């Protein structure tokens, strides 16, 4: 009997040419549009059909009576610094608050059974189904009445709604994967609840918790509509600042600059998470 020979033995775990093409195409689709964004941010006048600006920002810098492009972006008038600080600050606060609310609940959801558990799980997913606009506008009136509209507290609270579902889901999965074995032993060995949590559970689930926190932070920093409604223009973040710039359907140099700044936290986070995941010994 003769075996039908395959053209060439191939390592099935290695990438094939089609897959390589797909990956390259997707990376191009993902990254390439940033090039014109950078050019736009450096342009003074960039009209169709020029592939590059006819007049660059630096050529016009000394001649213009006002700060242009990056000069404006970096001036205090652009509010970029304030928006960046707000975005990061709100993101951190939301993440911590969300963690405090979700971490204990996730443990219970992962490890115990109680009446109403499935209803609670359903309630947790619901915010993902309701459009942001509905939540924002409906809450706006209560928040105005409570004096929370246009305040940091108000924005942070409202950010909890879309972040909680993600955080609970991720932390529940973390707890499910983690099990209770180590905790059982710690308790048998005489550790109190807080000792168990801080000395055993937390160090063990830390990678998962950090991943959940990063994702929550990301969701919070990317939120526009809720910040817009509840922030009332008084609390500006990078997404609201950028929205104001592009809502007209056109992008000028300062808009492009702000778009680039608004991408920065994400880009930094991208490399940070990558590095973090690599260097943490428990991840593998």
């Amino acid at each position, binding site marked *: 009997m003769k075996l039908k020979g395959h053209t060439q033995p191939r390592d099935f775990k290695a990438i094939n040419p089609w897959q390589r093409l797909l990956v390259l195409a997707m990376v191009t689709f993902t990254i390439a549009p940033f090039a014109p964004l950078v050019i736009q941010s450096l*342009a*003074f*006048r*960039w*009209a*169709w059909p020029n592939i590059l600006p006819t*007049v660059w920002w630096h050529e*016009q810098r000394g001649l*213009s*009576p*006002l*700060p*242009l492009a990056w000069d*404006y972006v970096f*001036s*205090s*008038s*652009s*509010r970029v610094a304030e928006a960046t600080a707000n975005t990061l600050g709100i993101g951190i606060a939301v993440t911590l608050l969300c963690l405090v609310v979700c971490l204990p609940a996730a443990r219970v959801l992962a490890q115990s059974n109680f009446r109403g558990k499935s209803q609670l799980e359903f309630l947790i997913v619901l915010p993902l189904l309701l459009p942001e606009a509905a939540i924002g506008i409906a809450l*706006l*009136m209560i928040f*105005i*009445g409570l*004096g929370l*509209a*246009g305040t940091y507290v108000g924005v942070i609270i409202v950010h909890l709604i879309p972040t909680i579902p993600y955080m609970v889901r991720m932390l529940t999965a973390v707890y499910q994967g983690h099990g209770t074995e180590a905790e059982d032993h710690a308790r048998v060995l005489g550790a109190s609840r807080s000792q168990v949590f801080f000395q055993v559970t937390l160090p063990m689930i830390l990678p998962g918790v950090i991943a959940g926190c990063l994702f929550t932070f990301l969701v919070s920093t990317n939120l526009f509509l809720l910040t*817009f409604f509840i922030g*009332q*223009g*008084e609390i*500006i973040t990078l997404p609201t600042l950028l*929205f*104001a710039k592009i*809502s*007209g*359907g*056109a*992008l*000028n*140099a*300062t808009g492009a600059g702000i778009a680039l700044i608004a991408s920065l936290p994400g880009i930094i986070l991208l490399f940070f998470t990558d590095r973090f995941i690599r260097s943490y010994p428990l991840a593998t």
Partner: protein
Amino acid sequence: MRKASLRSSQMLLASALVFANMSSALLAESAPGVFRSEFLKGNLGWADVTAKARTEGNVNFYYWGGSDLINLWVDQVAVPELAAEGIKLNPVRITATKDTVDVVIAQLAAGRGEEQGSVDLVWVNGENFFSLQQQNALWGAFANRLPNSVNFEWDEADARSLLNLRDFGVATEFQEMPFSGEQYVCSVNRAYVSTDQTPATFAELKTYLEANPGKFTYVKPPHYLGNTFVQSVLYAHNPDGTGAEPYQKTFEDLGSAELARLIEPGFDYLKSIEPLLLGGPSGQTRYPESSGELDNMFLNSQVHFNCKFGVFANHTGLITGAYPEQAEEMIFPRGNMIKNKNYLAIPLNSPNPAAALVAINYFSSVDSQASRLKTAGMPVGLDVWRLNQSDKDLIEASAPPHYGITQQELDDNTAPDTNASLVDVIEATWLAVIERKEDKPIADIVAQVSGELNN
């Protein structure tokens, strides 16, 4: 500059002498509402106001933050100059004034009344002012009580007072102070359109478009820029030849049938140019959703014209690179270039009303308006003929240049805004006739949309 400060110090001195019996310190600690009622009764002098303003210290200024130039002026000029008067101006940039109106009204509904709100000062006009007025959410008739009200014409007998007394046909009742006066001006790209080709009437525009199809479009109603274009078309096509005049009446006064009769020729024109507008030749007419999008189309030579509210838009477009290099202004449509004013209003529950008054007074000063004209290219809101010669000279010297036309030509072709109650009906009619292409007589459409609006 020296003159202005001299005058304000004179005012200060005078009011201090007259109202010396009022204790500012006492006022500062008084219950909410006392300041307002005393001020509106005329019991307080300007010195009391400035004194209370300094104790309040802050003023929260809500304004449309979509222009880098205006933002720069507010941050770099207005904030430090008001700080010199002991008031910290907190500029809050908003994307839609409606949102701020909502906040004020919702706060009042939630029982946060006088001096318990969060908005001190809002840049407003037209519908949003009307909303605030309707909901009794305005602070009061302050405009003619400010020292710098002398820069404005308040005499009803003088026809030129119209823009100070009426906002889209709604009586301002001194509840808002003119901030800036704008005019609907079009720019043309001289790289494509020579002077003799440049249209000055709608008929000439149509002729141009027949030769160069697709090279014009206007911002889509219900955006106010689109509404304004439609209004100027309606004025020009008024079957009675009375231009803007009948459009000053309210919808109730005019009646649905009469409005339909007036606007029919104008809508016929709008329908007739639709296939000639941008994208029209390929069967898909495109209306930009905002002036920014139209600016972009103008820069990329998708269209040869760009119409918007902006007496100095051509200039600022050139110095920011937003306009093509050969952009020039044009007089179009001749005699119907709509002019209006926008205003500053104080909501009823302003937490710092005295500071708001001081801020408005500052914004109404010749110096402030001149510097804003110069750095932000934002036309003055005060009435130049009320000023003395040196102030007039200052304003004139601060004005950015015009390109291809003169200020005089702009002033000669002015038309007023349409009454706010008509604007709603006209914009709904536009959506029905142009957008949804409803094939019904205009009279039926007007009756239908006005019925829906008043529902």
